[in-house]
């Protein structure tokens, strides 16, 4: 899922940094609206660590192998903190374990961070159904959707970026077929990440229910 250095043209990498910069500015602006912005930093720190380590957990999906991303989980639990958390996590992954790259840091941040923000809004969408659904069911279903949407959108962005930037040096049809295969391999991962996100959210709801206020319209 992480795009390494040397795969994308310079224009795309620069564009990635530009969009990542805008997204970071917007996320920090939203965070500033919190009454106490430092309140969520411990949670963001722990989930940044989880995100950092998740990429090393490979799941064999024949014929390929995929790894956890957890951007949907971060979106559900952190809201707008998810974007800077993912940006920091990606930086450390690139520098320390060589996942991704520094030239593609912006692109990777957009690819995983923006779906995390969308996953956050998907998760907040549970407020529209709590009138008819039990809180725990709404939490579980929307956490699953957030986890699945996060990784699913990231896989689609990855697919779009890689397929449209195949250099003339390589056989485009062969590369395209390989990218198709890898993208399809992320469908089982959507189920895994959705289930994992639902499990974590339901667990946290049991031990710390004030994290997920119910019966009110969430912004």
């Amino acid at each position: 899922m992480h795009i390494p250095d040397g795969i994308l043209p310079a224009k795309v990498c620069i564009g990635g940094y530009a969009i990542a910069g805008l997204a970071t500015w917007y996320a920090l602006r939203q965070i500033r609206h919190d009454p106490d912005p430092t309140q969520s930093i411990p949670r963001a720190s722990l989930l940044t660590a989880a995100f950092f380590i998740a990429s090393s957990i490979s799941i064999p999906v024949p014929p390929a192998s995929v790894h956890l991303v957890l951007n949907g989980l971060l979106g559900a639990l952190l809201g707008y903190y998810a974007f800077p958390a993912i940006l920091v996590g990606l930086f450390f992954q690139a520098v320390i374990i060589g996942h991704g790259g520094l030239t593609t840091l912006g692109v990777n941040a957009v690819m995983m961070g923006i779906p995390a923000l969308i996953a956050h809004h998907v998760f907040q969408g549970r407020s529209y159904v709590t009138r008819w659904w039990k809180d725990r069911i709404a939490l579980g279903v929307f956490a699953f959707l957030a986890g699945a949407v996060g990784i699913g959108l990231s896989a689609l962005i990855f697919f779009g970026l890689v397929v449209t930037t195949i250099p003339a040096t390589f056989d485009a049809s062969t590369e395209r077929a390989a990218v198709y295969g890898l993208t399809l391999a992320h469908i089982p991962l959507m189920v895994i990440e959705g289930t994992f996100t639902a499990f974590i959210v339901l667990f946290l709801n049991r031990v710390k229910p004030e994290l997920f206020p119910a019966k009110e319209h969430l912004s």
Partner: protein
Amino acid sequence: MFGTARHAYAHGVSMSYQTTEVIEIQGKYDSGEPMADAQVAVYAPDDPSTPWLTGTADDQGVFMFKPDLSQPGNWEVQFRLAGHGDIMTIPVDAESNPVGTRGSTGGLNSVQKLIVFGAMTWGFVGTALYFSGRKQRMQKSADSGLQSTPSQF
């Protein structure tokens, strides 16, 4: 590879072999899986933009080629498969053959990775504990009559 040249005879067939020096590269993912059927581009030192040779790795992610020794310098080999890949630089001497020199594009071994994970996790958890502790201290101050906000794990 060294050996003595030999011939094998059969009905109407003549076979022979000779030793030569080739560069063998294996592409692997971070997980250790070979980059089976990866596309490979080899660039000669005097033209780093036009591939000198293109090909496909085998099912073990192995690609072999014989460099042109009349072009000494840094040869670059690029592997690519499904948006993943890497570039490796191989120095080739006009006189000495490149076979026998082993290289890698790097990466940490499992022990180093474990240490890194431990250190990073401790750093992140330490940050979390610091803020949690700070919040708890603020909570205690609030209980003593000062204004504060409840902590979040």
